[in-house]
């Protein structure tokens, strides 16, 4: 274990599967919160729907005529995500923004607890098994054990997962960019600034907010689908509210309402988290730090990252890509 190992670990996590999952969910939040100002505190619900749709349809319903293959299961997952957005949005989007926050955070927990307590949906054990065989079957990488990209090394499956993940992200970034430069995106930003003003200008803000909630939810669901396929396992207790808060952290770190904000945020967030962890382990292993046990490193890295984020909010509230002038306007 040396400094090179620490850096390699940090870099590989910063662009790895977990970062991709968080990034997809955060890109959805960027549309909802960053552009439209919707306080969705239950993005994890959309992620859970994606993961569980794959788990349940592929493993629990194995051989069912309704789910001939993975691709159909993905389609179902997206439809369920739209349904969830409608269920959350219809009663709350007419109300003040705070209500959506309360309803979504509760919905996330309700969904997790339903999955956890229903045996046909995996129960407390979750769902484990081969999910996404069709996906791995089309892996174009040649048959060999490991693939090395510079210092990074991936298994054949991981290399394929990460490649597809970043391609999907690139396409969704392009979609976000195209939407947000258009008059549709302009209405969304207007709603974020002052909904009543936009209503007085002849736009049905309810309709636009619903579209934003659905689109951002689908992004989150894609993250969930990806999660199930990459990890081959769906555990109810992975889908805790903290996930959404990390997404907000990533979004604010990178810069909200910036197309590339979540990307920068996710990469830096995961880099720092893993770097701090590995670095502390390194210091413990060579005896530099004697007052910590390796098991204490996990919580401590979150303390340090939390501290860093507090400093960021105080000294650079606009995030890395944001414009300080824009933030200052809010104070007026």
């Amino acid at each position, binding site marked *: 274990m040396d400094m090179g190992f620490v850096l390699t670990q940090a870099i590989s996590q910063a662009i790895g599967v977990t970062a991709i999952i968080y990034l997809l969910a955060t890109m959805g939040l960027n549309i909802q919160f960053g552009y439209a100002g919707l306080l969705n505190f239950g993005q994890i619900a959309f992620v859970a729907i994606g993961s569980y749709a794959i788990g349940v349809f592929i493993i629990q319903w194995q051989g069912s005529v309704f789910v001939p293959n993975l691709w159909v299961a993905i389609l179902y997952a997206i439809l369920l995500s739209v349904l969830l957005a409608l269920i959350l949005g219809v009663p709350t989007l007419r109300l003040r923004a705070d209500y959506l926050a309360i309803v979504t955070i509760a919905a996330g927990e309700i969904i997790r607890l339903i999955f956890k307590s229903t045996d046909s949906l995996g129960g407390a054990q979750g769902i484990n098994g081969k999910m996404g065989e069709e996906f791995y079957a089309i892996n174009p990488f040649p048959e060999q054990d490991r693939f090395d990209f510079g210092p990074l090394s991936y298994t054949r499956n991981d290399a394929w997962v990460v490649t597809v993940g970043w391609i999907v992200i690139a396409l969704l970034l392009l979609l976000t960019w*195209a939407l947000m430069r258009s008059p*549709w995106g302009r209405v969304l930003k*207007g709603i974020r*600034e*002052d909904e*009543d003003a936009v209503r*007085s*200008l002849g736009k049905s803000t309810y309709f636009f907010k619903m579209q934003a909630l659905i*689109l951002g939810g689908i992004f989150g669901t894609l993250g969930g689908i990806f999660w199930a396929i990459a990890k081959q396992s769906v555990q109810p207790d992975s889908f805790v509210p903290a996930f959404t808060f990390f997404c907000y952290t990533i979004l604010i770190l990178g810069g909200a309402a910036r197309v590339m904000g979540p990307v920068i945020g996710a990469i830096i967030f995961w880099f720092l988290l893993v770097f701090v962890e590995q670095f502390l382990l390194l210091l413990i292993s060579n005896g530099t730090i004697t007052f910590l046990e390796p098991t204490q490193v996990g919580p401590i890295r979150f303390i340090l990252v939390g501290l860093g984020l507090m400093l960021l909010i105080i000294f650079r509230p606009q995030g890395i890509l944001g414009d300080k*002038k824009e933030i200052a306007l809010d104070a007026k």
Partner: protein
Amino acid sequence: MPNSAATHAVSELATVTAEPGVPKPDPLLVADKVNRHFGGLVAVDVDHVEIQRGSITALIGPNGAGKTTFFNVLSGFDKADAGSWTFAGNTVTNTPPHRLARKGMVRTFQLTKSLSRLTVLDNMLLGAGGQTGEGMLASLFPFTWRSQETKNTERAMVLLERFSLASKSKDFAGSLSGGQRKLLEMARALMLQPELIMLDEPMAGVNPALKQSLLDHIRDIREQGTTVLFVEHDMDMVRDVSDWVIVMAQGQIIAEGRPEIVMQDQRVIDAYLGAHHDQELTASGGSLTEEVTS
């Protein structure tokens, strides 16, 4: 050069009797038995009122008279408990604001709602109606909306020029001064090419130098054929610019008429000025009314 329709509408008003609920020769907005109460408090109880097309009509009254509530109800931002109203002959009772705006009835707000983190030009473009690019799918294909966007931008720049904001078009609206925001909000409402523009206290918080230019803009709006209805505290403005004045007190319309007549009406003086009615109305405008009605 005054628009002939506007002058016609105004000259028609000259012959209308000054009494509450009087019918107008060419009404654009007609409200009947509008009632809005909060618990036991009756905020609005308007029996009948008509707004003349092509005129500038002022809605005045002491604080708590129900002007803003009436305004909110008519513009769809609040729901009436009873009553009905029509706009250009169509019933628009409790129609949501975005539908009203599409029908040609647009309002501004007392606390200016400029969209801070959008540029001045984007604020204006948001006002344009019937945009193809506001459809989520169409927005992905710029060729479906680019030409419309160009036309809207041209129209927005003409309006910004008129309101002396053209040089600010690329700045964030949040960087404008209070008065400039008022102008922007007015210009943005005009992007909808409304038949009726409803201004909620357009003079609130505007410095005296800008007031004159705001008055000119409001007259200008009438000359271009748009009917103006505004709520205001500033008596100078009411006298200077309005063709017709409607006075509310305790939720009811207690008087209406041409400004010079209404301001001499004893009921108005009593309701508005109370014990201080012997003081000159022009003496200190807004501050006097505030002092008296607080």
